[in-house]
C-alpha cells in the first residue's frame, strides 16, 4: 500500500475520532454513570454504594412524579397532533401559489426564532386573566368571557400546549412545505384528470407521499416535548401547585434543589427509556430501509 493510500484510509478516521471520543464520554459514559447513581443511595453528592432499585421505588411513590409522567403524555400527544395538523394545513394553504408567500412564510416561522423562555414569559402574561386575553375581551364589552386555564391546576397543562404549539407550528409548516414542493405536479394533474376532488387528492395522494416529512417532524417535535424544561419553567414554573410538572423539571428539582440525586438519576433513566422506546424502533426502521435501498 502506498503512503498516499494509507493516508486516505486513516484520514477520515483521524478526523472523526475526536468527536467520536467526545460523544462516547459526554453521552454514553454519562448514561452509564447516571444509571449507576440511580442504583446508589446518593443524596447531595454522588455515592457509589449499591441499594438496588430503592430509588426507583421512591420515585414511583412520589405523587409529583406521577403528575409529571401523566403531563408528559398529555403534552406530547396534544402538542404533536395539533402542531402537525396545523402545520400541514398551513403548508397546504401556502402551497396554493398565494401572493406574498415569502412574507407569510416568514411570519409563521418567526416564533421558532424565539427562545422558549421568551415564549413562556409572553404567554404567561397573555394567559393571565387579570392582564391578558380575558381582560382585553372583557374590556371590549363581552364581560362574561372567562379564560383562566392557567390558574386551574387541571387545565394549566393545556396552556403549556398552547404556547408550545404557537412556537412550533411554523417549523412543522416549513418542513411540510418543502415536502409538498418536492412532489411532482404531474401526479396531481393525473389525479385531476381521473376526476378526483382536491380534498381527495390531498388526503389519498399527497399526504401519503409526505411520509419522510412526517417522520422528521414527529422525531423533532417529540424531542422538543421531552426536553420541554425552559418553557414550563417560564410559563408556569411547574405550578399551580406542581400541576404542570414535567419529568425534566422533576429531575432538576430532585437532583439540584432537594438533595435527592439518586431519585433524580432514576427519573433521568426513566426519561431515557421513554425516549429510547420511541427512537429505537424509528432508527431501526430507517436503517433497515437504508439497507434495502443499497
Amino acid at each position, binding site marked *: 500500500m502506498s503512503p498516499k493510500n494509507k493516508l486516505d484510509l486513516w484520514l477520515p478516521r483521524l478526523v472523526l475520532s475526536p468527536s467520536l471520543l467526545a460523544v462516547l464520554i459526554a453521552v454514553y459514559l454519562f448514561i452509564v454513570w447516571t444509571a449507576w447513581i440511580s442504583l446508589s443511595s446518593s443524596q447531595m453528592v454522588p455515592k457509589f454504594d449499591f441499594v438496588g432499585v430503592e430509588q426507583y421505588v*421512591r420515585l414511583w411513590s412520589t405523587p409529583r412524579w406521577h403528575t409529571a409522567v401523566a403531563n408528559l403524555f398529555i403534552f406530547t400527544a396534544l402538542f404533536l397532533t395539533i402542531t402537525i395538523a396545523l402545520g400541514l394545513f398551513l403548508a397546504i394553504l401556502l402551497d396554493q401559489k398565494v401572493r406574498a408567500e415569502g412574507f407569510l412564510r416568514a411570519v409563521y416561522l418567526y416564533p421558532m426564532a424565539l427562545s422558549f423562555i421568551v415564549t413562556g414569559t409572553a404567554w404567561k402574561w397573555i394567559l393571565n386573566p*387579570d392582564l391578558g386575553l380575558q381582560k382585553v375581551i372583557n374590556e371590549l364589552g363581552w364581560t362574561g368571557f372567562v379564560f383562566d386555564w392557567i390558574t386551574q391546576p387541571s387545565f394549566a397543562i393545556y396552556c403549556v400546549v398552547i404556547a408550545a404549539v404557537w412556537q412550533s407550528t411554523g417549523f412543522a409548516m416549513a418542513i411540510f412545505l418543502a415536502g409538498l414542493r418536492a412532489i411532482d405536479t404531474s401526479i396531481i394533474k393525473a389525479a385531476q384528470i381521473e376526476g378526483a376532488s382536491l380534498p381527495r387528492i390531498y388526503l389519498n395522494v399527497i399526504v401519503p407521499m409526505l411520509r419522510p416529512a412526517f417522520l422528521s417532524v414527529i422525531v423533532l417535535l417529540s424531542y422538543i416535548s421531552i426536553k420541554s424544561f425552559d418553557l414550563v419553567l417560564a410559563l408556569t*414554573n411547574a405550578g399551580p*401547585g406542581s*400541576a404542570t410538572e414535567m419529568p425534566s423539571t422533576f429531575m432538576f428539582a430532585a437532583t439540584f434543589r432537594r*438533595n435527592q440525586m439518586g431519585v433524580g438519576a432514576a427519573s433521568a433513566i426513566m426519561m431515557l427509556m421513554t425516549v429510547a422506546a420511541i427512537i429505537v424502533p424509528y432508527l431501526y426502521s430507517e436503517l433497515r430501509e437504508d439497507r434495502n435501498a443499497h
Partner: protein
Amino acid sequence: MKLTTILAASIALAPVAAMAESKGKVEGIHHWVSESEVKALKVITDKLATKGYTWEDSAVGGLSGANALQALRTRLAAGNPPATMQFLGYEGLDWGKQGVLRSLNDLYTKNGWDKALAPQLLAFVKNGDDFISVPINMHRQNWLWANKAVFDKAGVKEPKSWDELIADGEKLRAAGAIPLAMGDESWQILEVFEAILVDVNGPEFYKKAVIDLDEGALSSPEMIATFDRLRKVRGLVDDGFTGRDWAVATGMVADGKAAMQVMGDWAKGEFLAKGLKPGVDFLCFPTPTDKPNFKFVIDAFGMFKVDDAVTTAGQDAWAESIMDPEVQKQFNLIKGSIPARSDVSVDSFDDCAKRSYADREAAVKNGAMLGGLTEGFAAQPQFAGVFTDVVGKFFVTDMSSKDAVQALVDGINNAR
C-alpha cells in the same frame, strides 16, 4: 472525599475561570445579585480591602441559590474550591459533613464569636465540634406587612390572632382592597402555612412536626386544623395570583391595591425603594399569635479547605471582616435584615428592625427562636420539598385538609 474524576474530566474541557490565585485574593461564590444585595456585599469587601486582600467575585444568581450550588459541585469535583461560599439553611452543615470545610474553631475562640451569637443560630454554623461558617445577617421570616392608609380606612388594627386576621379580611375587602397579596408559587404559600402552624400551635409543636418530623404530630388534628385555616386564608386572596412574584405582591400592598402580605423582612426593601416610611406609610408586625416566636433565616459564609497559606490567611481576613460589628451594622442597614451578632446595637435602624431585634432577644430567652421551613432552616431539602408540594397543591385545588395531611405523612415517609 470520593468525588468522581469523570466529572472533573468534563470540566477540564470547559473554559477554565482564572484559576491562578494571585497573592492576597479571596474568591467567593454567592447569589447576591440584586442592587441592594450588591451594595451590602460591598460593605464586607471594602473591609476586606483594608486588611490587604482583594475580593474576587464569583456571583452565580438565580433559583434561590440552586445555580450557585451547582457551580460549587463542579468546582469541588475539579479540586478547585473557592475560598468561601454563601450558605443558606442546611447547605453549610451538609458540606461540612462531606469534610470539605475548614474548621474555624481557632477564630471563634480567639474572638469569642460564639458568645455573640444566639444559641439557636449556632446550630447552623457548627458541624459537630467544628464551627464551619460565619453568619452576616439575620432575616426574620414571619412578618405581616400592611398598608397603613388601607388599614385606617377599613378601621382595622394589628390583628392578634389568625382568626382575627381572617375576619378583618371582610372589612378590608369592603374598603375596596384585596385583603392579602400573594402569588401562587408554592414557597409563598408555604410561608403562610408555616406561620399559621407555629402561631396557632406554638413553638413546641412546630419543633415536633417540622424539625423532628414526628409522625404523630404530622398526622395530628392540629395539623388538619392548620390546613383548615389555610383554606380560609385562600379566601383573602384575589384570583389574579397566578405566577405573581413576591415583590409584585409587595408592590400591591405599597400601592394600596392590597392590604397585607405575609413575607420575610426582605420585603421591607421594596417599600423603602418606593420612598415609603415604616409606621407612616406602611406597617410591620409579626404574624398574629399569642405564642410569640421568631423565625429566622441567616446567610453565612463557609471556608473551604485549601492547601496554600495565602488563601487560608485571606479566609481568616474574610471571616473577621464579616464578624466585624461595624460591618454587620452597615451591611444590614442596606440589606434590611438585622445583624447576626446579638451584641451589635440597632439604634440607627428603623422601627421594624428594632422590633425584630427586641423580639429576637425575647425569643432566645423563651426558646421560641425557630428556623424558617421555607428557606431551609427547619427540615432537610428533601423533606421541606414535600411540605412545599403538599401545601402548594392544597392551596390551588380543592383538596381536603385530611387528604393534605395524609399526603404530607406519606410524602415525608417516602423521603426518609
